[in-house]
């Protein structure tokens, strides 16, 4: 038996420890955006942060992503304090945030280049990922030529091109119509089954949370805090009429009031 770094392998992929966030512009009278948040996410777990707008769920996601700084406490990934983006984290934004001057394939290649994929392999890697998200025919289209759902597929492929352990998703299907949204949820689960990742997914849709999550973390605003956590062990694909889900829906609904 050796006492190498492997012994230090953390039990959790992401740990959020007594994390608080206050914007300087808010002033001391307002309650903090995030107050003493405690959250642990296991490797390959699918966690959904659920709450009304203003409850700090996106801020929490941004801090885990390294896009924003915590005011107190810390977020750790693989036992290391997060100070900046990168290092195994891929992010998907609500509006896709694709670069409009690049085609679908070039958008994915942008990320592959950042990951350090040699120039000659980027094309192949991108084509592979676009095929994974079901976009083989539209590789050379610009984002403006793609529907909202297709843009989000590209955004997911782009995040995957970073080859991350963690996928951070900020209301990625929030701007889509309901049918496309359900379709995209199933797509995401399919992709997640093919490429296991730790996922932190932000939404304000209870049903979306119920369909996707291993664990739902319900948050409330002013101060931003966690008010309820529930694990869901029901097999996917889940059906909306499942009595256990209906029961959970009721419980979460009440927690959100």
């Amino acid at each position, binding site marked *: 038996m050796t006492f190498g770094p492997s012994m230090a392998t953390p039990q959790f992929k992401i740990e959020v420890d007594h994390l608080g966030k206050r914007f300087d512009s808010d002033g001391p009278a307002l309650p903090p955006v995030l107050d003493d948040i405690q959250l642990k996410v296991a490797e390959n777990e699918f966690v959904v942060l659920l709450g009304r707008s203003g409850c700090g769920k996106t801020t929490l996601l941004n801090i885990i*992503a*390294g*896009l924003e700084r915590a005011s107190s406490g810390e977020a750790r990934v693989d036992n290391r304090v997060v100070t*900046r*983006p*990168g*290092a195994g*984290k*891929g*992010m998907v*934004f609500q*509006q896709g*945030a*694709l*670069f*409009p*001057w*690049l085609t679908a394939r070039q958008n994915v290649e*942008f*990320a592959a280049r*950042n990951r350090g994929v040699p120039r000659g392999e980027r094309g192949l890697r991108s084509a592979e990922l676009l095929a994974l998200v079901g976009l083989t025919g539209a590789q050379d289209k*610009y*984002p*403006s*030529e793609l529907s909202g759902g297709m843009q989000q597929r590209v955004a997911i492929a*782009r995040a995957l091109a*970073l080859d991350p352990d963690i996928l951070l998703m900020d209301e990625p299907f929030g701007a889509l119509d309901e049918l496309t949204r359900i379709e995209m949820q199933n797509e995401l689960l399919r992709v997640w089954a093919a490429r296991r990742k730790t996922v932190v997914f932000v939404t304000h849709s209870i049903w979306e949370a119920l369909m996707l999550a291993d664990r739902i973390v319900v948050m409330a605003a002013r101060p931003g805090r966690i008010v309820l956590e529930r694990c869901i062990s029901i097999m996917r694909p889940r059906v909306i009429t499942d009595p256990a889900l209906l029961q959970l829906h009721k419980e979460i609904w009440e927690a959100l009031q």
Partner: protein
Amino acid sequence: MTRRARGLSGGQWIAQYASPTLVIIALLALWEVAASVGWLRPILFPPPSRLARSLYELATDGYPEGVTLWVHFGITMQRILTGYAGALALAVPLGLVIGCVPLLDRLTVPVVAFSRSVATLSLLPLAIVWFGTGEGSKMFLIGYGCFWVMLSNVVAAVQQVDPLLIRAAHSMDTGRLGIFTRVLLPAALPRMFAGARVSLGVGFMVIVGAEMIGTIKGLGALIMEARTFYRNDITMVGMALLGVIGMLIAVMLQRIEAWLLPWQSRERR
């Protein structure tokens, strides 16, 4: 380019090219008739047939004698392009820097807004004192007009880049230089091109005035010289030629834009 290549049906082709041409021909015909029956005084409104003869005279003998249309055309083109290119060469890098550094922007906003608002031609007397009546003062005036317009457009272009795109690039761990060259620049390009077009328009407004002094060459000088001798026909031909140059450069810019910004032209389609 053939109709098919542009993807236009017969009806669209007529709507886009044939009908406007007919309107122009009809207007010219009306003008000609009006002048020949005496509704318009030919000395004030020389008819199109007279203008055609003047154009021919200008192309062969020249006006003033020996300075042909081609000389005027070439000189004006050269002045506009040098002044314009010089203005862009200065305004683009400077605008990028100011746009990227909010503090610099706050410091320079009043200067830019003021300098941009000064009617360029009001600088003509000063320009002559500073740079003489030769090419220098003309370049300066054209450059001045184009520069401030372009500068404020480049600054705005950088500032209007969607911050979400910067965040997205940041989330992919793109470095500072990468964010500038791979995100900020391409994202700002469309607005910068719009600025380049407006700026060129300013160059054209300035050129006629700039050529009024100290030269007999150039379309502006031609127009002034002809005015002095009541050659309204020549003045009109000069005006038309300025219009042609303007259109040529606009088309050129459009081509460059479509080539550099393919995602924009595909959007419009």
